[in-house]
């Protein structure tokens, strides 16, 4: 396989395309570009297969290639990877009365969550939705995500915390708007 066996490489694609799909769908909005980028990821991987040093999982290595390819695309399109929430990174909370807020949260999270989730995840910035998906859906550890994104583990953790909070706040806000 490391000598460039095309058919063995086919099985690598089959086993890792879920991860690549997760990253391209979350970071790239144009379906046509996703197709090109996904192909580009594996062509790059094939070309550099001899450079894989077995220091990490093969899937992590392919994830790194996918992340960097998507990142390059976003940079070319001058698209923002994350939001800026000031230096302390505090996310503004919705201005609900505390009691009303708790009551609202309970209703929203128990009934409409599944319906709203898809739309609200899609509205997050590319990096946030990628990190959330890698952690919660692909079940990667913080360390693995840090390796893929080349971000410090603490930063990954912080971004995932922020992303979840934004997601929760947005769901509550949407529910509040719907109620008015």
């Amino acid at each position, binding site marked *: *396989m490391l000598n*460039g066996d*095309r*058919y*063995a*490489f*086919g*099985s*690598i*694609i*089959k*086993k*890792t*395309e*879920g991860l*690549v*799909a*997760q990253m391209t*769908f*979350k970071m790239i909005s144009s379906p046509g570009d*996703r*197709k090109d980028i*996904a*192909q580009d990821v*594996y*062509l790059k991987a*094939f070309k550099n297969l001899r450079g894989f040093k*077995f220091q990490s*999982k*093969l*899937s*992590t290595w392919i994830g790194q290639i996918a992340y960097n390819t998507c990142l390059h695309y976003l940079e070319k399109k001058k698209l923002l990877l994350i939001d800026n929430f000031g230096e302390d990174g505090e996310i503004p909370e919705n201005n609900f009365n505390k009691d009303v807020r*708790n009551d609202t*949260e*309970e209703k929203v*999270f*128990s009934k409409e*969550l*599944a319906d709203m*989730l*898809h739309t609200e*995840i899609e509205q997050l910035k590319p990096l946030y939705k990628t990190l*959330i*998906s890698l952690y*919660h*859906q692909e079940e990667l550890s913080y360390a693995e995500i840090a390796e893929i994104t080349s971000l410090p583990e603490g930063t990954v953790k912080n971004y995932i*915390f922020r992303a*979840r*909070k934004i*997601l*929760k706040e947005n*769901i509550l806000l949407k529910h509040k708007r719907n109620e008015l």
Partner: protein
Amino acid sequence: MITAHLTDAEIQLYVAESEMTSDQLRIHIQDCVNCQTRAANYQLLFNSIHDHAKPQFNFDLSTLVLEQLPVPKRVFPWTGILVSVFSVLLISLSAIFFWSIMDTVIRSTPLLLIATTLTAAVIILIFQAFEMVKNHQKQIHTLLNAKILQL
């Protein structure tokens, strides 16, 4: 005992990595309905994200990529064969030309020294072979651990 409600980050930590939370936080959550509700909501959010449908490509990525890969050319290993033939010739010619000198050296060298040298060479070769096998097994283990290939 913590009396103020937990921060959002603490609630998330409690839900996502309960083993990382301090006993004080756990005790507070057990006694606080407000924080319990917030934790339950986050748990629901996490479960919903986990159960959310994963994206899939609507095309056969594997076929598309394999079509674009270069077809490996089957080339006859001329270089390898030439090097091998040259090496065999060199060793044979050296043996023929220098046989008288080598014969003298071998006869004058104590048997113990020859045996020691040969044993050392064999041991080094065995160690190198072991190292190669160990390295290969490590690589296979990495791939299997990654659940990437069913070897």
